[in-house]
């Protein structure tokens, strides 16, 4: 199970049952989901970029402070 789903289930379990609050929450989630979609193209580009293993190999850094 994904972390967000686990957190969501936790919320459902401990929710106060206020239908107004639930509706607002649902609206917020729906609105947020559509805004999250704005990043889908960026995710697609990230995954379509160079070979991931090569990228990670070259991203090695010297330890700093």
């Amino acid at each position: 199970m994904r972390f967000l789903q686990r957190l969501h289930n936790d919320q459902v379990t401990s929710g106060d049952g206020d239908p107004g609050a639930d509706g607002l929450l649902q609206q917020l989630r729906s609105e947020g989901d559509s805004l999250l979609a704005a990043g889908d193209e960026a995710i697609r580009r990230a995954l379509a970029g160079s070979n991931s293993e090569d990228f990670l190999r070259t991203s090695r850094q010297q330890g700093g402070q």
Partner: protein
Amino acid sequence: MSTHPANESADLLPRLCGADIELGNFIAGVVRAGGTGYEASRALLAEIDGLPVRHDNWWSSSAAASSYKYNNQPGSSASSSAYAYDYQDVGRRFLLSNGGCAYIDLDHVELCLPEVINAFDHVAAWHGMLRNMRAALHRANESRSPNSRIQVLVNNSDGQGNSYGSHLNFMITRRTFDNIFWRKSHYLSFLASFQISNILLTGQGKVGAENGRPAAPYQISQRADFFEILQGPQTTFKRPIVNARDETLCGRCLADDPSAPARLHVIFFDSALAHGSALFRVGPMQLILTLLELGLVNSRLILDDPLDALQSYSHDPSLQASARLINGEQLTLVELQSAFLEEVKRYAAQGVFTGIVPEYEEIIALWEGAVDNFAKRNLMAAARGGIDWVLKLMVIERSMDQHAGLDWDSPEVKVIDHLYSSLDTDGLYWAYESGGFTRQLVTPERIAYFAQNPPPDTRAWTRAMLLRRATPGSVFSVDWDTITFKMRGRYNWPTYRTFNMTNPLEHTQAEAQKIFDSPLDFADLLDALESDSCNTTLTVDALTVRQQQGEEHYALSTTAT
């Protein structure tokens, strides 16, 4: 003097804050033994203008020009004019734009923000500096082939066991510094417990675990795996949760003065991109440090085993892990952070922070809203409120939903982790910021201002203005509290004149603008600045904040020398 309800007499200082933040930099797609950080960092720094100008090969190990040796020796020089190579301080140049500086530390470009007092100014100055750094990145990449482009990551770990810092520097009294590190162990424990609980709001999030820690698909803090002891002065190995490096913030000449303020060097927090996380690195620390200054230390809020708690909390993004306090209570991360918030609110109601922490009511309101989102498990609201680790988690889980076959062990997922923090336009954070997903706590105009201007209410303003006014070749050395100019003396013999800015709260725009507006030649300008209340001894007395009747500013009682 203050009449705050404190256990100790309070000599309150504004929580002046600076920052020195290392970036991840490498050449994407190029494999070299030892990595490409050396080449990438030098190419990037070459695109950042600043003073003093060095025409020699400053990155050569045989003739590096700029050096600033960290040291704890009172009165010793830390001037950038010293000609000795220091691989932790290569090519330091101060910026005419905003009064900050940039240099290379262990093959990482390091950006130092100018001193600010207001936590919201910190957010604006940070994003302004990132904007400038991105322009430098684009210039550096212009002449490079598509197969050897430099990549800059605003993060703190390469996922391969190497970490680099995102440090904050807070001005505190010497008394409080000594209390934390040398006299009162519960002060140290209180501060450590707060810092740990604050990963809830400041963590950037990271795929995987490092440094020999137990495996974790995703964790809240990038840095947590690298803290191995409770306190200590070191920063590159066995990193301490609370850093005890004792360097003067306000002037080397005062290092042996017990009444001079101290610097608390905070190496604990992750780099932040989202505005909320950036603000919560500074604002709540300003409030908690004020409580420490006042001796308002609630020993109930002390973790029994801070290092163990940090691991437990960071490795559990489902927020169910609990840690034991010394009184036997078990608190989750959200509960512990809530307890610190309640402590701050209690004292805010008594006026403790008035005149000490600018916009403290706004900081507390945002803090409360952020913690409340977690208490209600409203992760969407937390992400939209600007908490990096939650937004990154949403991005990664969304990518898993949309691309079959991806799981927490997929290299593609680690790439997304890294690219969340990419400074360039491929950075995933920027996609969500520009798409209006995350709440912006400072306006684009305020960011643009701090990209090109110093904070008006600290000495950074005069530093930047002097660097702009001086002939570039005349700037011999620059440090946070001094600038040395090469002047023409009698018979045109060169002389060196050092302008001191010992007090970080002086030399503000309000004090110095009129002088810079005068038609003075440069020597007369320095004379005027020096004669205009600028030679003051910085002592706690001199910095004692006197609350003006309802006014949100700091009135300093200064002592002329």
